[in-house]
């Protein structure tokens, strides 16, 4: 048993933390939040240079990491910094699928991802699917050597910036079947592909995607026909570890901001943090934060294990519950200042809470946990 980071991970963590604290302050981020792109190309390039993206891929895939703890280290720091750049979407989801399912040419694109020159987006969720991973009603129909895609994809994060969308579509089976789902690499400029983009509550941008007779060559299919679900599950498992770690990192920031506030702001001549009611509530946040950190460790440590899905469900359930507590209590203990958009905590709290809405909230993951525990 060993709870120490390897030297490489420790170095990555240190340099990323230093970079973000120097270069990604509230002012910079607020500008990014207000920008049309919803992200900064400069920051993206610098993150790639730092090796942040490469750390998310194995050596085989062209990176120098790719294990659960690599993901956890990177995303904890991104979360701590409240980073809105779509590392999860381009690297974990998009890049992860290319690396797992792609042919040689497609796998070569991972290099561009790692280098920071290519954005990707996973177009998987659909208007009626909620968090159901297997609910795919977008269709893929062979037409000669081509495949024609029809359907609607909802809240596709990073769609506008992506050079390619990874689109899930059904080649056979009913709406909820795991069999029959394929993944296609669709260029952003494909005819029949329409995006309706918008900013998101917690920063960054997403789009509603319509596929109206989008025709791609059969070679655009990643892997075998109808067999895409397992890889989808894998990258979403990794994304869940990333989200859990990111949220935990954001919680860490929320707690630190709260501590600073409680020890700075005075009432009756004393820092308000010395009043017992707030001090005790703050202690509870610290305790729960340790729980969240342990949950991330459990999930990251089991990313390659047979207990993967149950551990991930546990981690995301716990972090969703604790996250809401930390976000709400941090705001409450700050008072009015935390209600203002430009204050650091407002953004951090939104990152924490809105994570619920990606790949399942506390109840969804609790149900998964119950199901997987019974199995």
């Amino acid at each position, binding site marked *: 048993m060993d709870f120490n980071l390897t030297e490489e991970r420790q170095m990555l963590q240190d340099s990323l933390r230093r970079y973000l604290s120097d270069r990604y302050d509230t002012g910079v981020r607020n500008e990014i939040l207000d920008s049309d792109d919803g992200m900064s190309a400069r920051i993206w390039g610098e993150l790639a240079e730092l090796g942040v993206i490469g750390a998310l891929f194995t050596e085989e895939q062209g990176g120098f990491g790719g294990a659960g703890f690599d993901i956890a280290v990177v995303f904890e720091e991104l979360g701590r910094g409240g980073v809105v750049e779509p590392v999860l979407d381009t690297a974990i989801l998009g890049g992860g699928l290319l690396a797992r399912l792609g042919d040689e040419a497609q796998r070569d694109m991972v290099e561009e991802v790692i280098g920071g020159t290519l954005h990707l987006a996973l177009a998987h*969720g659909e*208007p*009626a699917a*909620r*968090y*159901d991973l297997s*609910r795919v009603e977008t269709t893929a129909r062979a037409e000669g050597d081509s495949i024609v895609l029809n359907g609607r994809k*909802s*809240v596709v994060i990073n769609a506008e910036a992506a050079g390619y969308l990874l689109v899930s579509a059904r080649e056979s089976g009913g709406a*909820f079947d795991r069999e029959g789902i394929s993944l296609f690499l669709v260029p952003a400029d494909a005819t029949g592909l329409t995006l*309706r983009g*918008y*900013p*998101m*509550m*917690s920063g960054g941008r*997403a789009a*509603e995607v319509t596929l109206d007779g989008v025709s791609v060559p059969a070679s655009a299919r990643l892997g075998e026909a109808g067999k895409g679900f397992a890889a989808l599950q894998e990258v979403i498992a990794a994304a869940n570890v990333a989200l859990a770690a990111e949220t935990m990192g954001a919680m860490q920031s929320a707690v630190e901001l709260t501590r600073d506030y409680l020890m700075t*702001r005075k*009432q009756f001549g004393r820092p308000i943090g010395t009043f017992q*009611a*707030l001090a005790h509530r703050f202690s509870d946040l610290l305790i729960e934060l340790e729980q969240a950190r342990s949950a991330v460790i459990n999930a990251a440590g089991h990313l390659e294990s047979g207990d993967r899905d149950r551990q991930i469900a546990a981690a995301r359930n716990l972090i969703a519950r604790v996250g*809401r507590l930390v976000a*709400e209590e941090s*705001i*409450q203990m700050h*008072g*009015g200042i*935390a*209600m*203002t*958009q*430009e*204050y650091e905590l*407002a*953004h951090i*709290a*939104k990152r924490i*809470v*809105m994570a*619920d*809405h*990606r790949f399942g*909230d506390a*109840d*969804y993951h*609790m*149900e998964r946990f119950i199901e997987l525990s019974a199995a």
Partner: protein
Amino acid sequence: MDLNYTDEEKAFREEVRAFLDEKLPQEVRDKVRRGISLGKEGHDEWHRILNEKGWLAPNWPKAFGGAEWNAVQRHIFEEELAAAHAPRIVPFGLSMLGPVLQKFGSKEQQDYYLPRILSGKDWWCQGYSEPGAGSDLASLKTRAVREGDHYIVNGQKAWTTLGQYANWIFCLVRTDPDAKQQEGISFLLIDMNTPGIEVRPIILLDGEHEVNEVFFDDVKVPVENLVGEENKGWTYAKYLLTHERTNIAGVGFSQAGLDAVKRIARAESANGKPLIENPHFAARLAQVEIDLMAMATTNLRIVSGAAAGQAPGVESSMLKVKGTIIRQEINDLARRAVGPYAMPFASEAVEGDNDPIGPEYAGPLAAQYFNNRKLSIFGGSNEIQRGIIAKVKMGG
């Protein structure tokens, strides 16, 4: 003990319903239901409709143009407004300043200001809080110095709700800097068009412009704008605060919110079944509904006590705390109900000419969740309320 409304009360409820059916425009209902901001014109229009009926000021005496309803009637009225998705009555002139002027204002002040509140000529805002002072009015810093026939006001107010629409502000200012704590505070009426006043927006975490900072730089205020006596402002402020708290439990808002969550949970599906049949979602919904049923009765007990002349004391604080917890829990359920479609930024999802993003109801839910964190912070934070409750109930 009788939990039923009397026949008179029932008849009153019917009268309110009939009025709302007839006079509340569908377009306004839809906006309120969908969480779309009405703007000043929308609020003014609704106030005008209510004023024509004589119902704009339920708690004012008839002598001043109010409806002079008792507490149970007011409660029924508030419930029906919320259920019909009527806009809330903007409280600053009607629920806050009005009662203060009626009780402590001069005849001249009453004659001048009260009709202008009813007619909509004046939009008032509240100048109580200051930056960094939280809910602690006693540490007030804005100064007013008497110079001849004027006070010269310098300082800064914060969290001034809808101050961007206001042409008047009622302010607490410090007139005696040597007096300790809550002494030495006065209650001033200030024309927002006076030179030296600047209003700056504060954008809240949901992206909306709802509150403001107001800066005073050598602002000249005629002495006749002083309400009551100099240095007695704290008395008037406390009186105002008890009035602010008449609908503090927000039962009507919570009920309307809960109904909305149920509608959403019937429309949304999880695992191929309506979300409302999901046992975990149903459990959360049931518990908050059960809490609300009890709080509605707590509220009625206090309201009917108030109707019988008992002053609501520490009970207001209890209603504030529990009422905000319940409303916030409902907001949380609502955002969770819509799954990924909570993510789009509200104004993009809701406003403009485009179709909404995702289901029509989804757009404002995350924003409402974040915006309503304010409920437990502003107007005397829940921590302050708990302190008041403990002090009164343990003081023994």
